[in-house]
């Protein structure tokens, strides 16, 4: 009997989402399959999940080991600039940071996307319309300096945020081909350049 109670307890303690019932999950998958359609560039296959998306689709993050495994895999996706140059034009970077358009079914092309950074981050001293889903990046370069480590880390974070936090809310801008290498260089300049309004009042 003692064994049974422990087992019952264990079962009750399982994370509810997927474990709730195999049947409900099967019905859920069928429901998702019949509920969506392709419109414009937003193809129906967008509803099929990548492993990393699936692992981060419950009300609680997955186990530490699972997160570590995802982060190790995602780290391998990062492509650093082939020419070794990390910084473009901060003025172009600001436009990309402000622009939240792209990849919806009302957008004509999967190219020319904005970074949508201001949806989630404070950045410039002057832009007051910023979101708070991510931390403030105000004075990013000024407070972090421009050492190799921080520059490489920041590139990596923009390229694939999941390499550093498996279930990050931040998109994988490089890995998911949301932004081009040039756009990411411009954003790097926006974050680090001493003349950029991120660092200069």
């Amino acid at each position, binding site marked *: 009997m003692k064994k049974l109670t422990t087992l019952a307890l264990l079962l009750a303690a399982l994370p509810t989402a997927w474990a709730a019932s195999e049947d409900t999950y099967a019905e*859920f998958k069928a429901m998702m399959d019949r*509920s969506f359609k392709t419109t414009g560039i937003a193809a129906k296959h967008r509803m099929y999940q990548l492993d990393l998306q699936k692992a981060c689709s419950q009300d609680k993050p997955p186990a530490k080991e699972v997160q570590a495994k995802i982060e190790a895999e995602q780290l391998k996706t990062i492509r650093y600039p082939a020419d070794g140059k990390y910084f473009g034009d901060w003025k172009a970077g600001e436009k990309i940071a402000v622009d939240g358009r792209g990849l919806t079914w009302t957008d004509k092309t999967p190219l020319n996307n904005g970074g949508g950074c201001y949806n989630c981050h404070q950045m410039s001293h*002057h832009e*007051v319309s*910023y*979101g708070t889903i991510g931390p403030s990046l105000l004075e990013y370069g000024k407070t972090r300096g421009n050492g190799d480590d921080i520059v490489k880390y920041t590139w990596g974070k923009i390229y694939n945020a999941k390499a550093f936090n498996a279930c990050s809310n931040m998109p994988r801008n490089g890995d998911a081909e949301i932004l081009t290498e040039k756009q990411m260089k411009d954003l790097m300049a926006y974050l680090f350049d001493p003349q950029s309004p991120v660092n200069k009042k």
Partner: protein
Amino acid sequence: MNNRLKTLALALVVSIVGQAQAEDTSAKLLDGINEYRDALADGNPSELVAAEGEELWKTARGPKNATLERCDLGLGPGVVKGASAQLPRYFKDTGKVQDLETRLMTCMETLQGIDPQEVVKAKWLKGEREKMAALVAYVVTQSNGHKIKVDMRPPAMKQMYEMGKMAFYYRAGPMDFSCATCHGDQGKRIRMQELPDLRTNAGAAAGWGSWPAYRVSNGQFWTMQHRLNDCFRQQRTAEPIYGSDVTIALSVYLAANGNGGKVVTPGIKR
């Protein structure tokens, strides 16, 4: 709309459009919104849409040339008062959980002979979809001030809730977003837009209970299906089919989380 309202609406639209150009401060923007809300206290622009909807409710239409006056929204044939505060609901006659819009489609089909596909296939605010919006405005006005009261006892409702919760956390698409990315934390914003935490009773009551709503920024009345559709668009998923089960499941999840909260419909939004 009277002139003062028009001017305010215009000022607000201009300030929202100007947002990207910065300098326009957040305080000014929020002041504008509040001022507009006050001005609306004695006249919600959706009243016009609701009046159209009431007219439509009583007009004989469709192949069967009948009105919707015998439509059963869950409280019995013809009962509109308080009905939408208790939706979505499990309906025995269709064997399905339905939200207001899919239930209205059932009434249009059975009473008037109108093919549901005419609503499903129409564009937002066009054709039968526009008529649907008017009907919705009429019906939800009759639940203003009621309490959100969805009956979670039927097993079908419980299953829809579970599936709605799964859908809420379901990450997909090129940006890996789920509903929870934007609505799964307290006190967050996107740009200047405050985001309700829809996992909580207070957040869901505020978010669910204030829709359908009149949107000041584009002068349109939006149904809940329209709201959800636009959030999926921002999420970068494929497009949810109008009235599809994922939209019903999410509606059950939101309404049940908000149970007991106050219905303020039609709401007035940015």
